[in-house]
């Protein structure tokens, strides 16, 4: 096999002939006679384009321009090649790889990442949740929310009502929790921080109080947030987002990190919808154990929708029932809206609570 030999010290090439036997590569030319053990040679891999360079152990190398001739020669001499190379050089193999790639992305997104996230969260100490929640709470109090303007008895009343409601839950299924009230421009809202604090806005309390004679709606809302705490959703989301980001940057990251963020957002939204469903299931469990009807949550959704409409019509300054409603409903059910939405559509959640109430 004709080739060019470089000694690794001089840039000058030497015409040589290569011979292979069972254990040795012989490099022979004018004044050159080397015998290299096959195992110490770093062999080139088969490609359709480009030359072949075999690196010898002391920095020397042999180059061959004719790739096809080299490949024939090495095959005839019995040098094997890696299955990776065989896969790379076969279109059939590559097509199979594409199919497997799509499959493994789906499997990872649907099951792999959530499962791994559960496992990671299970071994993460609770102190980390608390630290994360404390940091978030400090930030929220500094930037987003003000102290509550409601009387302090309100908080005590809510605490008592919810303590009583969860008392009937089986032991060990209720995580550590506490309540806090805040006033905010966000409107009626409630959310759980990973340190166990459930924050409820004044608007939410006012809205719920209007319809809530026996605190059932309040219990439902708080139990939903308790569900987030029980499943440690904040930590799980954190792990899932990191994992998804890593996968996305592996797949499209070297082209554009902007493009890589799209699948992350979509995957994240789908996890978030699953988390909301888990929290809704917790709400049903708590309501049932407290002998309250899950149907109270339907009232809450109606009230929330009313509030949103009032706000919208106030903003649009149109006199009465505005024509925007059917349009938004359509928007929500379009596939693009679903792909990026953090919560399942209200209609679906209402149906869930109605069925649970039966």
């Amino acid at each position, binding site marked *: 096999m*004709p080739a*060019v030999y*470089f*000694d*690794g*010290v*001089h*840039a*000058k*090439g030497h*015409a040589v002939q290569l011979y292979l036997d069972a254990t040795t590569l012989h490099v022979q030319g*004018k004044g050159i006679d080397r015998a290299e053990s096959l195992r110490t040679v*770093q062999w*080139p*891999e088969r*490609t*359709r*384009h*480009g*030359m072949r*360079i075999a*690196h010898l152990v002391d*920095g*020397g*190398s042999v*180059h061959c*321009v004719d790739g096809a001739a080299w490949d024939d020669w090495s095959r005839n001499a019995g040098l094997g090649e890696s299955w*990776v190379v065989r*896969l*790379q*050089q076969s*279109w059939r193999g*590559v097509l199979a*790889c*594409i199919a*497997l*790639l799509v499959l*493994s*992305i789906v499997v*990872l997104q649907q099951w792999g990442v959530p499962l791994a996230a559960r496992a990671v969260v299970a071994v993460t100490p609770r102190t980390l949740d608390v*630290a*994360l929640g404390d*940091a978030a709470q400090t930030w929220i109090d*500094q*930037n987003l929310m003000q102290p509550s303007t409601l009387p302090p008895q309100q908080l005590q009343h809510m605490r008592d009502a919810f303590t009583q409601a969860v008392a009937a839950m089986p032991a060990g299924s209720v995580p550590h929790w506490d309540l806090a009230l805040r006033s905010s421009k966000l409107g009626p809202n409630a959310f759980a921080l990973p340190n166990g604090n459930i924050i409820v806005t004044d608007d939410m309390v006012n809205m719920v109080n209007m319809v809530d004679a026996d605190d059932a709606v309040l219990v439902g809302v708080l139990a939903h947030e308790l569900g987030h705490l029980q499943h440690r959703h904040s930590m799980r989301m954190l792990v899932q987002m*990191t994992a998804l980001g*890593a*996968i996305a940057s*592996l*797949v*499209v990251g*070297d*082209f554009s*990190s*902007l*493009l890589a963020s799209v699948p992350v957002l979509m995957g994240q939204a789908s996890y978030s919808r699953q988390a909301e469903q888990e929290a809704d299931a917790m709400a049903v469990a708590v309501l049932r154990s407290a002998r309250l009807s899950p149907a109270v949550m339907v009232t809450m959704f109606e009230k929330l929708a009313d509030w949103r409409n009032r706000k919208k019509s106030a903003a649009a300054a*149109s006199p009465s029932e*505005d*024509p925007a409603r059917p*349009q938004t409903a359509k928007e929500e059910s379009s596939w693009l809206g679903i792909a990026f939405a953090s919560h399942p559509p209200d209609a679906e959640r209402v149906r869930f609570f109605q069925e649970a109430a039966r």
Partner: protein
Amino acid sequence: MTDETLRRADEVGKWADAVQSPDFAETQPTQSQPHSLDIAFTGSGSEYFRIWIVNLLLTLVTLGIYYPWAKVRRLRYFHGNTLVDGAPLGYHADPKKMLKGYILVSVMLALYSAAGRFDPVAGLVAFVIVMLIWPALLKSSMQFRLANTSWRGLRFRFTGNLQGAYQALLPLFVPALIFIAAMAAIPDRKSPPAWIGFLIMGISLAIMVVFPWLFKRLKAYQHQNYALASQTTRFEATTGMFYKVYAKLFGMSIAGIGLIGFVAAIVIPMSGAMHGQADQGKTMKMVAIGVVFGMAYLLTVFVLIKPYITARMQNMVWSNTQSDGLRFYSALKFRSLLWLSLKNWFLVVLTLGLYWPFAAIARTRLQLQAVSIEANVSLDTLVNQARSKEGEAAGDAAGDLFGLDIGF
């Protein structure tokens, strides 16, 4: 086969014939006559596509452990298809060593991003630590890449030292540090004092003014330390040249944004969105128009400005890099790169990313073949005196994972 590939194959053939003829040694000129060395790139999109898919799958199913092997296969393909004067570049990195580097840097990255989430002070400390070791990582990374690249059997070297790396890089962090310190000094986040606004404006302005100078120091550190055998490069670009490129870029972005604004000023009143009576329709229209012009702005930035700065920078930086016996020239046309970027973006989006390997090959070809080298030493007389130091694989991994492309 296209004419281009035929021509290239022909070139390669000539070199091979010459080197393999029995009187090869005698026919080579030993005198140093100036002659030009062509750079050709023979990689193919469809072949890289196959390599890329297999790499991707194996990386995914091994949860990233295969990544160093994937990187070695990719770089071997790109290097092996880069022919300088007919001889390909070799890539020698050991994936096992790289894997260790990646594990080390992944742990660092995880700690770094975790620190900021739990505690702002810990985040600041982590930032300062990364900042302090960053120059050392850059130097290692350059050493690693060059020491694992060879041409005609000679390994390249990176001769930059640690001190030079710190001098070149540390000033880049000063604005960020001032900003973070200022944020920490604010007593009440809800009502930030007025001086913070001025400070942010001042820092942004200062960054814009000194950035070309800082970038020049970084490029100088890289480009005066490339070495092959007895040849070590010098960097002869002046700070003024960097300012000129950035001034043109600035003018261009202003013109681009101005053009979008101008079109918007004409289109928006025409669309009737300003004086419609149906409220809902009006909002929808406004949103649609906002989205369209937002996209136009993004496109201008990504599609117009990036190729511009890439082309102009490559030409300026490489045309001012030379050693005693070698001189580089780069004549990358902005128009060709712009056209190629447009095509690449369009096809990558259209194929949901599958076109990416074709795009990478096409871009590499355009960028590499714009470069030529003039030699006035006889290449055969080049001798490597010392084996090059390899550098730490962790530096290479850090360059990848922290996402700072060192632009070699």
